[in-house]
């Protein structure tokens, strides 16, 4: 159900549908060391998006150098969207293309942030469980993965943190000056406005790309 664009036409006093201003984040809660049997684990809530991440390794890769990258550690990311994550019960298959893209994005982001050259011939695997899905999936996954890697004590250049930003549609009157940015979109906003997830590695690392997420 598309909402009229005027809803997003913000002035200084206008609020979003969930009562936030344009620059306000949802409630953010995080824990580390949530699971005793994992090398590193974390649990992150951004509003109603709840993500659990466990880290295994660095360990010797299963294929024994099958990846061909012998000089540095490979980052293996598995994203698993639980069947009860959305509003309707839906199983997301392992071969889903959006999931594969998400895995590749997270993997490439951490390949450049972690000191992979310290662990040749090895693999670190990140298992990301999406327990509840309400927008900002990529940002929540990256933040949870950073926390789990901190818990695991894997050396990295800087903490990789991410946030989602969207842009309200133009009202049609002006020349685009009335388009307003929105920070940390929730699920219903993600279906309405174009958005981008930006991950940053702080001062040392610089920007680490991003991409549109779960549309």
């Amino acid at each position, binding site marked *: 159900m598309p909402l009229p664009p005027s809803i997003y036409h913000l002035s200084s006093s206008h609020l979003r549908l969930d009562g936030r201003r344009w620059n306000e984040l949802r409630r953010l809660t995080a824990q580390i060391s949530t*699971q005793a*049997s994992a090398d590193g684990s974390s649990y992150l809530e951004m509003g109603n998006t709840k993500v659990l991440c466990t880290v295994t390794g660095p360990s010797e890769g299963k294929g024994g150098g099958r990846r061909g990258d012998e000089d540095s550690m490979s980052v293996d990311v598995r994203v698993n969207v*639980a*069947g*009860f994550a959305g509003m309707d019960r839906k199983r997301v298959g*392992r071969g889903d293309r959006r999931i594969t893209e998400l895995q590749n994005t997270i993997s490439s982001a951490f390949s450049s942030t972690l000191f992979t050259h310290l662990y040749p011939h090895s693999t670190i695997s990140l298992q990301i469980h999406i327990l509840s899905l309400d927008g900002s999936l990529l940002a929540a996954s990256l933040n949870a993965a950073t926390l789990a890697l901190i818990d695991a004590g894997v050396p990295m250049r800087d903490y990789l943190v991410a946030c989602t930003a969207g842009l309200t549609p133009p009202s049609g009157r002006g020349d685009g000056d009335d388009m307003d940015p929105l920070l940390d979109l929730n699920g219903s906003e993600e279906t309405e406005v174009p958005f981008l997830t930006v991950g940053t590695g702080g001062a040392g690392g610089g920007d680490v790309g991003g991409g549109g997420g779960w549309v």
Partner: protein
Amino acid sequence: MPPTIPPLLSPSELSYLHTSLSLTPPIRPDARSPTSFRPLVAETDLLPAANGSARLCFADGTEAIVGVKGEVEKTTNTTTTGGRSGGKGGGKGGGIDVIDMDVDEVEEVGSGGEGRWIEVSVDMPGQRDDDAMVVFLGEMIHEGLVADQFLQNRLVINNRWHWRLYIDILLLSPPLTYPLPLLSLTTHLALLSTHLPAPVQGLEKDDDPLFNDDWDAAVPLYPPSTPTNPPNPTSNTNSNKKPTTARPPITLLVISIGSNIFFDPSHAELAVADSVVAVTIASSSSSSSNEAEDLSLLAVRTIDPPSRLSSSSSTTDADAGREEEEGVWKAKKGGVRRDVLGRMIGMCTERGGVGAEVLSGLEGFT
């Protein structure tokens, strides 16, 4: 059976463990009594988008999350006997023989629910969805849930509509030990915390259902027991005549070493177990309501003990008649003795026994 990690214990360590565990009274490595459990961490109602959810962490670090979601679905065949497919629902466990279950036929036509309205799926890291063990675990939990007709009958809304229950079980940690007890306890907690929207009163039997959108008015799937006042048939407002003590089943892992029986075995104790048995028990909903504490036995499964996988087991027939060496323990061959198995089941199901204690302990979480 799951790919259990072979115990990394030396022959003398195994011998020491086995000797101290077969003493009377036995000495467990962590000085617990044979029936005491290690502490576990649990929370319920943690997912906003699910009807019920629970997270459980065992002391060995294994962790599981279960989410229960309900969907309203049209009942297709209202005239056929509902309970016919009760025991073997799901249809996904092809080839798995459901044993030692007695599923009673539903006597009332149309009022009984069907087992396939409950869908259990198990997700384990590193395992395919159609992996034999994953399907088998899901089917074992499913058959326990549908064994007494309580849950199916709760799902009936009216003659034309029913709830379909999706139980998604997510094992978050690698399966260090046999995962069925963890999964069944987590499922138990999730089902206890499950609430379904309350139907709007005053509708005809065949109307499309309308639900109260106030979440506070939602009815629990398993009605809470009332420990303050003894079971009182007149206060039972449910339309069906079941007592309010019906509870989802739980599975306990029990091991025997010599003639000693241990609950909640640790990894080291599993390594020297003579026999490993998974006992599934449930509050019997069919008993009269003043015997609320009676537990019924749903299933007993023997599990190949991990000691058989280790090198210390004597597998060749040549070793069969040989005397045991001093200080070296070898895994016992053969099955469980009848009296040991009987005592195991007795300890699980007796009034005030371990099973009742676990059930009441789990109820404290919700």
